[in-house]
């Protein structure tokens, strides 16, 4: 549907939820108000969709997970990589003579910045999960569906 109607989405995450009956799809969408209304009403036409909720960035906890594999064969850059990882609180998940895998969890912007920094070294592979979000406070999407 997103592709067919040419909605400009930059991230899509499908995940399990608290209930085995529902999956949760988190979409990062870029568009004006009219496109946003159109996206929502097209989603509501799909019988499997129970509720569509627009999340306000300020009122939401957003995060994403990044795994990045870097070349580690140059001994002179090893400490720099580890320092940068430390500055971002990224975890070392794998460390060999040839490669290193770092994991970073955080808002997309933080991850973008970290990747940018890592470009100083040799990036071999990047894998990002896409954004997942929950509204702050007591709001629960499933309650909206039941209304």
């Amino acid at each position, binding site marked *: 549907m997103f592709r067919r109607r040419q909605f400009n989405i930059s991230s899509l995450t499908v995940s399990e939820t608290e209930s085995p009956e529902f999956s949760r799809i988190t979409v990062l969408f870029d568009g004006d108000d009219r496109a946003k209304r159109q996206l929502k009403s097209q989603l*509501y036409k799909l*019988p499997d969709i129970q509720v569509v909720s627009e999340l306000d960035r300020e009122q939401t906890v957003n995060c994403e997970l990044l795994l990045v594999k870097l070349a580690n064969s140059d001994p002179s850059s090893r400490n720099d990589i580890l320092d940068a990882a430390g500055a971002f609180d990224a975890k070392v998940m794998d460390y060999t003579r040839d490669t290193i895998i770092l994991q970073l969890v955080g808002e997309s912007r933080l991850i973008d910045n970290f990747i940018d920094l890592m470009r100083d070294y040799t990036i071999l592979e990047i894998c990002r999960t896409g954004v997942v979000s929950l509204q702050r406070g007591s709001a629960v999407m499933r309650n909206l569906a039941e209304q």
Partner: protein
Amino acid sequence: MLCKGSEVVVRTLIEQGTSLVYGYPGGMVVDIYDALWHHRTEIRHVLTAHEQGAAHAADGYARATGNVGVCIATSGPGATNLVTGIATAYLDSVPMVIITGNVPQENIGTDAFQEIDITGITLPITKHNYFVSDATRLASVIREAFALAQSGRPGPVLVDVTKNAQEEEVEWEQLPPLPRTRPKRHYHRSELVAAAEAINASSRPYVYFGGGATSCSAEKQIMALADAIDAPIGCSLMGISAIPSHHPRFLGMEGMHGHLASTLAMLESDCLIALGVRFNDRATGNRAKFKQGTTIIHIDADVSELDKNTEDTFAIVGDLKQTLQELLPLVRHRARPNWSEFVEGLRAHEEQVADRREGLTPQNALRALNELIEDDACVVADVGQHQMWAAQTLTFTKPRTFVTSGGLGTMGFGLGAAIGAAMGTGRRAVLVIGDGGFYMCLNELATAVAERVPLVILIMNNSVLGMVRQWQTLFYEKRYSATTFTEGQTDFVAVAQAFGANGARANSLDELEEALQNAFAAKGPFVVDCKIDRDELVLPMMPPGGTLDDVFFRVGE
């Protein structure tokens, strides 16, 4: 009672009110066909020549009757052959339930013989679809499919049933059919009041309706609204026949090949009241430039149609009939003499530039046909020039008597749909088709003959693919790439006779009148092969990507 899944399918179809299905058997639906044999006194199955014909027949049946059309096909090619038919129904919001068979669950995903992922293929062209590999779900899924096909904005729903689910035995109990749900009301009364105020404040309102008028049975309310505010009425291609063609306020179809008066009245209006219509590009031309700055009041059952192709001033979601009933008392009854006079002027202008040539012109051929069409008869038009001429020229008095593929524009839709329309209404149907479209579906003559379907088939035969040729004439400097047949290369009368139908050829208006007399007196299908000049154009025309301002009604001079 305990019965096989295939029995459950057939019994649930009967429970949901189905008495006629179209289809084609095959290895993965042979169990369902066995159940159909057992229930043959309660449900009639019609074998078509091709699965596409079955889908179009179910579609034509649904459009002509308002009931859900049902078709059945086997896995693999049986299912893929339905695809164009399903998409045709989807684009025109026709309620259909499609049953396909599939290979046993244990073979799914192995590229087994005749295995295809039909739910994947039809995802964007169905309202919803189901893959059922467990017989216990069958009855509830089919019931849900019927409810969904008819609810809100109608559409096709596909149920794919694996062979093992057809063979397993399960408990089945008859339930009453689910009631058809009306579209939910989403608007607040204040929106309706504001819309009514905008109508009251306008001096040149134009009432514009589409297929939603028929699916919501809102024809009377539309006429009442136009009467109250003294507005002309126009419609989209899908709206034709919803209100009588001779209604004094009716200006006819608007759009790329619409009536001149209707299109110009829309252009001049300051308040466009759009009812159950979706502003397709063939109706609006260049969307970005369409009616900028005009008040648009848009009422539709489908929220996603609002504000999609136009910038609606008032976007109101709801059942058209109920919403109009609520809107009517809010609008002020008043005459708009200046506007009426202007519209009458447009009508007189249209009359003045009308095509009045003598002899066998497309218009005269259709006028001759119009004379003989019974009031209740359903007219099916295929796709192309003849479709536009038919939409412009034929007159209708009852809803659901004009059936055509509007949204998808499916050539080859005609014969299958006409069979479905005739069988659904129990009356003779009329098919207007081009020679190109007839080549695409003439195999269904076999079905029409086998079922003795009363059909008048008028082939407007110009030996070219006329609509594309028209574009080539006007916009491609007459480079007629792949649009010309050898004149007389196929003897359509002999083709009809070879299938066991009757036929006659007409090279003049007199011959046509005589041929049509015979056609309307015949019991089964009758083909009239009518010669039309290949350089005839459909006019007026709004050039593709143009605006209502760019409409022309004459070429050359």
